[in-house]
């Protein structure tokens, strides 16, 4: 007897469907009911208690053909499938489904690195390939290619790219560096995108566009298909690489720091995903909160200053790197250093200057694409619960200061520390705002949930939209993209109904619901 069921699926039908699914993937690779293996599909990091978002079953498909057969059964029984490749996107939902009772389609077993082309610098990967795995593979074959990984390296190359994730080398915008996909649609049709549509294609992983509309974007942050292969461009190891850290002493220096960074980023002088981290964010990676503050409410500024002083941090800390021919790198460094030296009290650190500083070391590894878990030190700060928000703003000093003050006001009002950093893209700033809480404290979870909703709406009101959000808030974020009476959402749902009429693929993802489940939109938990 299943512990939970998907809505509108009868127990008898569910059992019949499971029997069919078991035959497809093998009994060993389907978990349901009270099977303890199902417990690992919970998300114990979110504000929603993990037992309110339990799947009814997990189906672990191992091949494209198995996926097609699973989809056929799901269509017949109208089973909602929640799909992932690695399931490590904690803060955003982890391996747990959007709704209680959805079935998980776990593709982690499909973890082959199908090709590494050293000359043309790309890889073709399956959904389950993690950054650690690809990195290890490249090193083991003697490749001189780099991956670009997000801060915790345990996630998946495909999943992170499909969710519009980012890293810290010049290849930091992962979706820009994606080239060619293989996708299974809900009806089982297999599509190869871009040049891959040509049966004799020589350029599937080399040229993005093919002929006609470029559809790859449709399969990112969406629920239109199951991506089974993806090409990713890899950066050749440059002959010269110069990572640096610049600290500034005052919180108000943020304005000037960003103003100086804009032209350097826009003109690709600093080509990587440069980070400007607040002292409390950098500090929280390394220290325990209790050592600096045990009282209620957010940590006082004096304690933040003490952390900064103990760890030799500025109130803001910029991490960037230069890449290319060694002589050019040195020339450009002179220019970069002089630009930032106009900030009174700015200090400069190069490789070797902060040996033994774990904060510098994990960021330096990230800037040359070495996956690590250094940033997860954050979870030792104040409890494992965390929700991340990533509003986007123009890369100007005024906007950065406005975002910083807005985030601090909201988080402090709900009693949380304001852990924040900015990541520079070419023209825009991604402001990572982290809500950290003790997940075992029900009252703290409730506060975190209320805070999360206010962060989304407060930043949207100021014109700063979220790049992504925990799946609990997908409908809310979608609402903030409501121009034209929700025109984008309505377009998305028109496509959804056309491609997946039975609504079997990840219903509600990014607020895109199939026709049969649209009334569930925006439903909040009691």
């Amino acid at each position, binding site marked *: 007897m299943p512990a939970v069921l998907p809505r509108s699926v009868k127990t008898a039908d569910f059992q019949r469907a499971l029997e069919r699914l078991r035959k497809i993937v093998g009994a060993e*690779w389907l978990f349901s009911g009270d099977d303890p293996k199902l417990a690992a599909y919970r998300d114990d990091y979110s504000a929603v208690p993990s037992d309110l978002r339990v799947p009814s079953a997990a189906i672990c498909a191992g091949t494209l053909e198995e996926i097609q057969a699973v989809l056929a059964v799901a269509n017949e029984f109208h089973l909602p499938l929640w799909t992932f490749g690695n399931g490590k996107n904690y803060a955003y939902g982890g391996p747990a489904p959007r709704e209680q009772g959805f079935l998980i389609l776990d593709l982690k*077993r499909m*973890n082959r690195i199908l090709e*590494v082309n050293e000359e043309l610098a790309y890889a073709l990967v399956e959904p389950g390939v993690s950054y650690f*795995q690809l990195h290890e593979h490249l090193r083991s074959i*003697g490749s001189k290619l780099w991956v670009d990984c997000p801060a915790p390296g345990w996630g998946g190359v495909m999943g992170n790219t499909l969710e519009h994730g980012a890293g810290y080398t010049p290849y930091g915008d992962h979706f820009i560096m994606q080239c060619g996909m293989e996708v299974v649609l809900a009806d089982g049709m297999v599509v190869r995108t871009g040049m891959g549509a040509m049966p004799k294609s020589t350029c599937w992983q080399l040229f993005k566009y093919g002929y006609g509309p470029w559809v790859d974007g449709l399969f990112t942050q969406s629920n239109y298909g199951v991506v089974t292969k993806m090409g990713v461009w890899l950066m050749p190891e440059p*002959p010269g690489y110069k990572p640096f850290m610049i600290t500034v002493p005052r919180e108000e220096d943020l304005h000037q720091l960003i103003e100086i960074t804009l032209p350097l980023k826009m003109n690709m002088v600093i080509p990587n995903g440069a980070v400007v981290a607040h002292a409390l964010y950098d500090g929280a990676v390394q220290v325990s909160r209790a050592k600096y503050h045990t009282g209620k409410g957010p940590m006082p500024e004096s304690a933040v200053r003490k952390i900064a002083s103990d760890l030799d941090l500025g109130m803001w800390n910029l991490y960037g790197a230069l890449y290319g021919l060694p002589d050019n790198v040195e020339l450009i460094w002179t220019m970069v250093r002089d630009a930032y030296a106009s900030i009174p009290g700015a200090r400069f650190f190069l490789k070797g200057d902060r040996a033994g500083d774990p904060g510098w070391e994990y960021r330096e590894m990230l800037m040359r694409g070495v*996956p690590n878990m*250094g940033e997860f030190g954050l*979870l030792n700060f104040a409890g494992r619960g965390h929700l991340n928000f990533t509003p986007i703003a123009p890369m100007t000093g005024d906007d950065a200061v406005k975002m910083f003050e807005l985030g601090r006001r909201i988080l402090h009002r709900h009693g949380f520390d304001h852990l924040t950093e900015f990541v520079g893209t070419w023209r825009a700033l991604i402001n990572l705002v982290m809500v950290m809480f003790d997940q075992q404290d029900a009252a703290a979870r409730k506060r975190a949930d209320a805070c999360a909703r206010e962060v989304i709406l407060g930043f949207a009101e100021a014109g700063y939209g979220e790049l992504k959000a925990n799946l609990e808030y997908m409908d809310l974020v979608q609402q903030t993209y409501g121009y034209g009476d929700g025109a984008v959402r309505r377009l998305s749902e028109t496509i959804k109904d056309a491609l997946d009429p039975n609504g079997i693929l990840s219903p509600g993802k990014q607020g895109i619901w199939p026709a049969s489940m649209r009334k569930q939109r925006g439903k909040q938990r009691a």
Partner: protein
Amino acid sequence: MRFKRSNYGWCSLLLVLGSGGALAGEPAALQAAEHRFPNRPAEYTYKVHCAGCHDPGEGHPGTMKLGITRGKDLAVLKGRADLPVEYIETIVRQGLIEMAPFRKTEIGDTELHALAQWLRTP
């Protein structure tokens, strides 16, 4: 300035720039020497799933946490002969404090057993 032949992307650039030093020719075909799930050796499983948090030294959140809760001598997992195999297997499957659970699709049952035994050895 010397450039390695295997550093192909940059070799090509140098040929264009005419700076010299680069060697022509096809790059060697790189052969996959990959360990395949679910039969990977314990050392590899540890490397791609555990080392990020549990390797010795600062910058490893698991080692950092164990250092706080169990003390420095018990902070590093490798060599912890005091942990029974069954205990390690249970924690990996269920998670503990900050550690997320690992599914059977991530670390196979046989791999997990081998990993737990390997962790206990010095």
